[in-house]
């Protein structure tokens, strides 16, 4: 089985998130995904990278060095897998309580929808903490 692997490292800066989204979109298109699937991957990558920047890396002092986010994309014959790696403190976003779409307006707090959308848009989302890095893997079937 042939597996194609592509990697990208971006500085953990909001203005660089688009680069990560476009990187994955290009690979999704090359893998044969349709426009809706590419859109869903784009949104998922934006949500995850934004969470890492706003929550993960905001909790520590990285003044001496620019933290990074790595993306490893693997194209299998039937699916595309994207692993997003960061060096923030261990945090499994899949264990976070899900927001409830039926919550009344006044009780809505605004957060948590990003990972909720990711889970809806992807076929499989898995987390592991390995080699001192958070590793979240998003998988979607190609057809």
């Amino acid at each position, binding site marked *: 089985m042939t597996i194609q692997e592509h990697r990208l490292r971006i500085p953990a800066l*909001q*203005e660089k*998130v*688009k680069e990560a989204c476009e990187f994955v979109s290009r690979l999704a298109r090359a893998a044969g995904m349709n426009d809706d699937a590419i*859109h869903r991957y*784009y*949104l998922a990558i*934006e*949500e995850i990278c*934004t969470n890492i920047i706003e929550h993960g890396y905001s909790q520590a002092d990285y003044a001496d060095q620019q933290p990074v986010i790595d993306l490893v994309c693997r194209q299998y014959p039937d699916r595309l897998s994207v692993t997003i790696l960061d060096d923030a403190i261990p945090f499994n976003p899949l264990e976070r309580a899900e*927001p*409830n*779409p*039926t*919550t009344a*307006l*006044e009780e*809505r707090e*605004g*957060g948590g*929808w*990003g990972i*909720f*959308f990711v889970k*809806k848009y992807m076929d499989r989302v898995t987390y592991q903490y390995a080699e001192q890095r958070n590793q979240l893997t998003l998988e979607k079937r190609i057809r």
Partner: protein
Amino acid sequence: MLDIHVEHDGEVVLIEVSGRVDSMTANQFGEALNQAIDEGNINIVADLSGVEYMSSAGLREIVAALKKVKRASGDLRIAQPSNRVMEVFEMAGLDTILQIFSSAQEAVGSF
């Protein structure tokens, strides 16, 4: 960057947004909504016909503004969301909270 155009139509403020509402640009949308509210406008229409993409950052701005105008007995109504934006509204359950119209004219006229 978003293109945002604001116009007053009687008691209603119409905010036309074009571009991608993402984590980089959502604050622009939020500022336009807040400015309208801070100027005393509580009946607002956001025309999203030019928005092809909205992530959770955009939803946060809509929910925050909607709460503010509702508390003042006003409303924030949405016109012409694309299918992709509508899908995000539906996933978050906002399609049952927001009043959504197929044209800006209809949304403005609903107040």
